[in-house]
C-alpha cells in the first residue's frame, strides 16, 4: 500500500469508530471535554502505531481499551470518573447509535460556525487538530485553540448533551446541515493541487451526510443533502483538466461522470420526495443538480424545469445569489433579454459580486452590445480574487 492509500484506510477506520466511542464515553462520564480528550489521545496513538503494527482486527475494541487505560491514568484525581471507567468492560453494551446527540452538540448554535466545524470534524469524524488545520490551510494552534475554547464553552455555558426535539428540531437540524454542506464546499471548491497534501473534506462531508440521513430517516432534508453531495461528487473527475484548471459545466467531458452514482442519487431523491412530500432547500438544490446530471449533452439540459425548481427554492429560501442563478437558467430557457431584466433588480444586493457582472457581460454579448459587455467584464475582473476566474475574464476582455 502506498502512503496516501494507507492514510485513507486509516482515516476510514478512525471515522467509523472514533465518533461512536466519543458518544458512549460522553454518556458514561457526563463530561464532553474529558471524553473527547480520551478519544483524541487514543486516536493519536492509533495513528502512530497502526501504520507500523497494522490495523488491529477489532479497531473499536483497541481504541476502547486504549481510551479506558488512558482515562484511568489521567483522571486519577477525578475519582467518580475513575470509578465509572473501571467498571467499564469490552464489549460496551450495545446501545442505539448515540452519535446524533454528539453531532447536535457539536453544532449547537451557541458555538461559532468555525467552532462547530472544527468540533464536528474532531469529535464525530476523529480528525486531529493537525489534519483539520491542513484541510483549512490555517495554523494548527488556531484549530487547537478553537477546539479548546469550544469545549470550555460547552462545559461552562451549560450546553447540554442532548438531541433537540419538537419545535426546536427544525432550526437545529438546519445548523447541522449547514455545517456539513460548508465542509463539503470547502473541500469541493479547493483545487486538486491545493488539496493534494490535505485530508479530503469531501469524503468527511459525504460520510457525515450519509450518517445523518441513516440516523434521521424522518427528515427528508438530510436525504436531500446526501443526494446533493453525491450528485456533485459523481461529476468531480470532469471538473479539472490535466493542468488543474477548472472546466466549466458546458465544456465538461460527461463520459467522465459516474453515471451509476448519479442514478442512485436521483433514485434517493425521488424516493424521498414521494415518501415525505416535504420539499426543502437541499432537496431542491439536489433536483437542480440532477437536471444537469441527467442531460447527455449541455444542449439537452432541461432549463425550463431548472427555472421552475429555482422558483420553488427561492420561495422557501429567498436569496439574491439564488436569483442570480435563476437568471442564468432563464437565459437558456427564455433568452438573454429576460435574464438581463432579472439582473437589473439584483444590482443593489450583489453590486460587489463578480458573477453578477460576468453574467451580465455574457448576456450583453449575446445581444451584440459589446461595449457594455466589455465594461461589465472589467467590473467583474476588478472584484474577483480567484486566479481561475481572473484568467477567464482577462481572456474575454481581449475579445472586444
Amino acid at each position, binding site marked *: 500500500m502506498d502512503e496516501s492509500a494507507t492514510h485513507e484506510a486509516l482515516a476510514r477506520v478512525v471515522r467509523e469508530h472514533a465518533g461512536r466511542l466519543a458518544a458512549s464515553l460522553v454518556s458514561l462520564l457526563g463530561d464532553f471535554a474529558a471524553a473527547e480528550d480520551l478519544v483524541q489521545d487514543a486516536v493519536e496513538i492509533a495513528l502512530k502505531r497502526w501504520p507500523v503494527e497494522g490495523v488491529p482486527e477489532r479497531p473499536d475494541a483497541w481504541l476502547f481499551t486504549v481510551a479506558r487505560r488512558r482515562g484511568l491514568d489521567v483522571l486519577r484525581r477525578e475519582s467518580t470518573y475513575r470509578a465509572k471507567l473501571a467498571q467499564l468492560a469490552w464489549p460496551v453494551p450495545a446501545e442505539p447509535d448515540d452519535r446524533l446527540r454528539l453531532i447536535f452538540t457539536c453544532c449547537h448554535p451557541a458555538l461559532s460556525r468555525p467552532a462547530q466545524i472544527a468540533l464536528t470534524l474532531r469529535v464525530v469524524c476523529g480528525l486531529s487538530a493537525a489534519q483539520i488545520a491542513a484541510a483549512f490551510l490555517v495554523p494548527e494552534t488556531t484549530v487547537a485553540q478553537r477546539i479548546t475554547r469550544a469545549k470550555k464553552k460547552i462545559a461552562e455555558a451549560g*450546553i447540554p448533551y*442532548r438531541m433537540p426535539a419538537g419545535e426546536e428540531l427544525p432550526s437545529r437540524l438546519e445548523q447541522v446541515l449547514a455545517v456539513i454542506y460548508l465542509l463539503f464546499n470547502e473541500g469541493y471548491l479547493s483545487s486538486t493541487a491545493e488539496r493534494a497534501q490535505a485530508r479530503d473534506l469531501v469524503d468527511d462531508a459525504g460520510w457525515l451526510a450519509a450518517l445523518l440521513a441513516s440516523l434521521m430517516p424522518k427528515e427528508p432534508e438530510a436525504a436531500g443533502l446526501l443526494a446533493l453531495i453525491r450528485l456533485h461528487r459523481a461529476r468531480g473527475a470532469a471538473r479539472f483538466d490535466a493542468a488543474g484548471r477548472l472546466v466549466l459545466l458546458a465544456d465538461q467531458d460527461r463520459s467522465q461522470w459516474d453515471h451509476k452514482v448519479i442514478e442512485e442519487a436521483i433514485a434517493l431523491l425521488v424516493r424521498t420526495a414521494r415518501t415525505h412530500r416535504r420539499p426543502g432547500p437541499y432537496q431542491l438544490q439536489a433536483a437542480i443538480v440532477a437536471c444537469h446530471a441527467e442531460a447527455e449533452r449541455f444542449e439537452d439540459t432541461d432549463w425550463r424545469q431548472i427555472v421552475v425548481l429555482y422558483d420553488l427554492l427561492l420561495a422557501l429560501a429567498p436569496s439574491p445569489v439564488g436569483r442570480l442563478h435563476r437568471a442564468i437558467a432563464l437565459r437558456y430557457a427564455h433568452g438573454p433579454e429576460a435574464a438581463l431584466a432579472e439582473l437589473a433588480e439584483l444590482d443593489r444586493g450583489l453590486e460587489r459580486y463578480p458573477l453578477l457582472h460576468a453574467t451580465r457581460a455574457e448576456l450583453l454579448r449575446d445581444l451584440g452590445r459589446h461595449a457594455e459587455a466589455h465594461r461589465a467584464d472589467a467590473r467583474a475582473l476588478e472584484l474577483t480574487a480567484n486566479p481561475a476566474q481572473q484568467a477567464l475574464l482577462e481572456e474575454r476582455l481581449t475579445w472586444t
Partner: protein
Amino acid sequence: MKYVLMFVETEQFARELAAMGEVEREAAYAAVGRWFAEHADKITHHTHLHPVHTATTVRLDGGEPLVTDGPFVEGKEVVSGFAEVEVADLDEALALARSWPACPIVEIRPAS
C-alpha cells in the same frame, strides 16, 4: 444552572416604545408581566434599569477615580434589565429568551 438574562434595548425599539399610544403601551407592559408570571418558577430575581441618561460611570483604572456622566460604553444598544434564572441547561435558558416579548436582544450568561 444559574444564568442571567440581560435585556438589551436598541434605539429603534426605544423610538417605537415612545411612539406607542397609551393602550398599546399598556398591552406591551402586560405582555412582559405575563412572561414573568409564566416563568415565575424559574426566575429567582429580576431588575429593571432606569433609562441610560440616568447612568453615572466611575473609572478606577487611572490614578484617581474618574466620575463621568453616562453609561460605560456609549452605544446604540443598552442593557435595560436583568433576570436571574435557575434552569437545567443552556437550551432551557435559550427557550426562555426566545419567548421574551419586549426589547429585541437578550444576552445569556452563566452565573454563580
